[in-house]
C-alpha cells in the first residue's frame, strides 16, 4: 500500500534506504546530511530490525565500516556532507576497485552557496573519479525512489553507488508516496578473496574489470527512467538534479529538455538533444561538471552555455531567478531592499562555554602581540566574529593543531590551536601525535562541550576519554589540564594558558562544560518524563 508522508529530502533518503532493506548506516554529522542518519536512529522499523546507526568518528571510518558490512553481504549506507568526501576519499575510491557484495550507497550532500561550509566542491567529480554510477535526485519523491534503485544498481553492477544531494533538497519538505519495507539481506560474506586484497597484481585485474564495466554503466544511464529527453525546438536545455525544478518553474514553452539524474552522463541522449536544438544551455547546481563534458562531447563549434560563460552565475546556488534570467525572461517588478536593515550573523549562545574560553584566551594573548590562534570547524569558529575576533584561521577538520605546529616549526610563538571535542576525535588526534613527536611548542585548547554541537547535538566519539587520549598520545601529565569554563574560574584559566604558552613543548588545556543546547534538551526531556 502506498501512503503519503511529508518528508525532508534527507528523510526521504533515509526512509528509502530503510525500505530497501538497509542493515546499517554509517555517518559523521555534517550539514546538510545529518538528518538522514538521525531519521534512521529514531525510526521504529530501524529499531525493530536492529539497523546499526550510531555516529562514527569520521567519514573515513564510516566508509570503511560500511564497506565491511557490504563485504558481509548486507546493505549499508554512508552519509556525509561534501567535504566529508575528502576525508573518506581513500576508502571511497578503492571501494570502486574492490567492488561490493551487499548494496553500498554513499550519500554526499553538497552545499552550493556555502550555507554552512567552507567550499562549493561538487561531489559528482568524485563519482566520475571513482568510475562508479552516481545519481542526483531532483525532488523529495525521487530521493525516496532513487535510494531503492541505488541499492539494486549497486548489487547488480557490484559497485558502490554515489547519491549526490544539495542543501536545498536535503532541507526542503514535500509529500512523498512511500511503499512497504522490503527484506534485509542475509549474512553472506564474500568468498572471492582476490578482489578484496588489493595487492598490485589483484588491483590491476580489478581496475581493468572496473574499466570493463563502464559501457554497461553508460548504457544503464542512457536507458534510465530518470534521464528523460523531451524534444522541442530551438534551445536545448540539460537540467541536472534539482535544477530540473527551477527549469520547470520558469520554462518557456517548446524548448527541448533533457533531465539528468543518473550518471555517467548519457552521451547519446546529449547528442540527440543537440541534434534537435540550435544551442544547449546546461543548468546544474554546483560546479560546471556536465557543462564541461557536453562541450567536449559536441566540439568547439556547437554553442553550449551555462556557468562557464556567465549565462548562469559561476558560483552559488541556482534559484528560480537566476535560471529565469538565463532563459532571458524579464524580471518581475519587485520591492526595493529595505533601508532599515542590518546583517544578523549567527553567534555563540549566551552562557556557552566557548564564550568563556575566548574571553580567557583574548585576555592572555593581549599580552602577546605575536600570538596566532589557529581555529577549527565547529560552533567555536564563530569566535572569528565580533565580539571575540579570536581566531586567525579555519580551514578543515583538525587543521588547527597541525597548522599551529607548522607555524611553530617556522618560528611563530605563541602558536595556539582551538579545537572542539568532536573535531579532535574526527581528525585532530593524529595531528597531536605529530606535534608530540616533534615536541612542537604549541598550546592546544581542546574545548569540550561533550557533544557535536554545531550540527544539533549529536554524540561525540571521545566524550569522557580526552585526558586518556592525550596522555596516550604522549602529552605530558603536567602539561595536560582540565578546567571548567565559567566566569568565576577566569583567573585559574588565564593563569594556566599563560604558563603553558611559556612552556616550549606540547600542552593541552581542556575546558570542559556541557553545551547549553544539549543540556536544555536533556532537562526538557527529564521534565516531560
Amino acid at each position: 500500500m502506498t501512503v503519503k508522508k511529508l518528508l525532508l529530502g534527507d528523510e526521504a533518503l533515509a526512509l528509502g534506504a530503510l525500505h530497501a532493506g538497509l542493515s546499517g548506516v554509517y555517518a559523521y554529522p555534517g550539514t546538510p546530511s545529518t538528518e538522514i542518519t538521525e531519521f534512521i536512529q529514531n525510526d521504529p522499523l530501524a529499531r525493530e530490525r536492529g539497523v546499526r546507526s550510531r555516529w562514527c568518528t569520521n567519514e573515513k571510518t564510516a566508509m570503511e565500516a560500511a564497506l565491511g558490512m557490504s563485504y558481509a553481504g548486507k546493505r549499508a549506507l554512508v552519509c556525509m556532507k561534501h567535504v566529508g568526501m575528502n576525508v573518506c576519499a581513500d576508502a571511497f575510491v578503492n571501494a570502486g576497485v574492490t567492488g561490493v557484495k551487499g548494496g553500498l550507497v554513499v550519500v554526499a550532500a553538497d552545499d552550493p552557496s556555502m550555507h554552512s561550509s567552507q567550499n562549493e566542491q561538487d561531489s559528482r567529480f568524485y563519482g566520475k573519479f571513482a568510475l562508479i554510477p552516481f545519481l542526483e535526485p531532483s525532488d523529495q519523491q525521487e530521493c525516496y525512489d532513487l535510494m531503492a534503485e541505488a541499492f539494486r544498481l549497486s548489487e547488480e553492477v557490484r559497485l558502490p553507488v554515489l547519491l549526490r544531494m544539495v542543501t536545498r533538497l536535503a532541507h526542503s519538505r514535500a509529500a512523498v508516496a512511500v511503499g512497504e519495507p522490503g527484506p534485509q539481506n542475509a549474512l553472506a560474506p564474500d568468498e572471492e578473496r582476490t578482489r578484496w586484497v588489493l595487492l598490485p597484481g589483484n588491483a590491476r585485474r580489478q581496475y581493468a574489470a572496473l574499466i570493463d564495466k563502464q559501457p554497461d554503466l553508460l548504457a544503464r544511464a542512457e536507458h534510465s527512467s530518470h534521464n528523460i529527453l523531451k524534444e522541442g525546438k530551438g534551445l536545448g536545455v540539460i537540467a541536472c538534479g534539482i535544477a530540473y525544478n527551477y527549469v520547470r518553474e520558469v520554462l518557456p514553452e517548446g524548448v527541448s529538455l533533457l533531465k539528468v539524474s543518473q550518471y555517467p552522463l548519457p552521451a547519446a541522449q546529449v547528442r540527440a538533444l543537440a541534434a534537435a536544438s540550435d544551442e544547449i544551455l546546461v543548468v546544474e547546481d554546483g560546479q560546471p561538471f556536465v557543462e564541461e563534458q557536453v562541450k567536449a562531447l559536441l566540439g568547439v563549434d556547437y554553442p553550449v552555455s551555462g556557468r562557464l560563460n556567465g549565462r548562469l552565475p559561476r558560483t552559488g546556488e541556482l534559484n528560480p531567478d537566476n535560471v529565469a534570467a538565463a532563459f532571458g525572461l524579464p524580471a518581475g517588478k519587485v520591492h526595493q531592499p529595505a533601508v532599515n536593515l542590518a546583517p544578523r550573523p549567527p553567534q555563540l549562545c549566551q552562557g556557552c562555554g566557548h564564550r568563556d574560553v575566548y574571553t580567557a584566551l583574548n585576555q592572555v594573548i593581549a599580552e602577546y602581540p605575536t600570538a596566532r590562534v589557529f581555529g577549527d570547524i565547529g560552533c567555536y569558529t564563530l569566535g572569528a566574529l565580533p565580539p571575540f575576533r579570536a581566531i586567525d584561521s579555519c580551514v578543515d577538520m583538525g587543521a588547527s593543531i597541525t597548522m599551529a605546529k607548522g607555524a611553530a616549526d617556522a618560528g611563530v610563538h605563541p602558536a595556539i590551536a582551538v579545537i572542539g571535542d568532536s573535531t579532535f576525535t574526527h581528525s585532530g588526534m593524529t595531528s597531536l601525535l605529530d606535534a608530540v613527536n616533534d615536541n612542537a611548542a604549541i598550546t592546544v585548547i581542546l574545548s569540550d562541550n561533550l557533544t557535536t554541537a554545531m550540527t544539533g547535538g549529536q554524540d561525540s566519539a571521545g566524550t569522557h576519554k580526552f585526558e586518556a587520549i592525550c596522555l596516550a598520545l604522549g602529552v605530558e601529565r603536567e602539561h595536560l589540564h582540565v578546567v571548567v569554563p565559567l566566569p568565576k574560574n577566569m583567573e585559574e584559566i588565564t593563569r594556566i594558558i599563560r604558563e603553558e604558552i611559556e612552556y616550549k613543548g606540547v600542552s593541552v588545556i581542556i575546558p570542559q562544560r556541557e553545551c547549553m543546547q544539549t543540556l536544555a534538551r536533556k532537562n526538557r526531556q527529564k521534565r516531560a518524563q
Partner: protein
Amino acid sequence: MKTDIKLAGVGGQGILSIATVLGEAATAAGLHLKQAEVHGMSQRGGDVQSDLRLSTDPIFSDQIPLGGADLILSMEPMEALRYLPYLGPEGAVVTSSKPFVNIPNYPDEVALLAELDALPKVTRMDIDAVAKGLMAPRSANMVLLGMAARHIGILAPEDLRQAIRTVFARKGDKVVEDNLKAFDAGYEGIQ
C-alpha cells in the same frame, strides 16, 4: 490557486513550528506543498527563513522567486523587511512589531516601524505581549499565525486550528489549548 509564504525570524523564535502547522493543514487539505528550511549553524541567533509554497497544482521550485511571495510572515520586524524583494506587488506583510535586538547596530526602531507601515499591506502586533497576556508566552508564534490566517486564502482558519490540535497533541492538552487560544487572539485581534 497558490499561496507562497516567506517565513522569517531569528534562530530559536519558532518559525519552524509555524511551518509545521501550515504543512500539516496543507497536507490534510490535500494541497501540494514544498517547504525549504534553514538548518545548521545559521540557527544560532542569526536570521532564519523558510520558503513555504502551497498550491492546488504541482509545485516545482523549492524556493520562492523574487517578487513572488503572497505573504511575508515574520516573528521580528526587521526580519520582515529583510525579505521585501521577495514580496509580490499584491503581497501582505504580517509581523511581530517587537524588535529582537541581539546585534549592536540594530536600526532605529521608530524609523524601522515607519518603513514597515509605509508598505501597502501590513499587519503588525506585539505578539509576545499578547501571548504573555494569555499566560501562554511560548505561543507567540501561533498569535502570528492567527494574524496571518486571513491572508492565507488557500486554507480555512478551521484547517489551521485542526492542524494545531494535531501538531501539538503529543505535548499534551494544555499546550494544544494555549496554542489555540493564541491563534484565536491573533485571528480576532486584527479584525
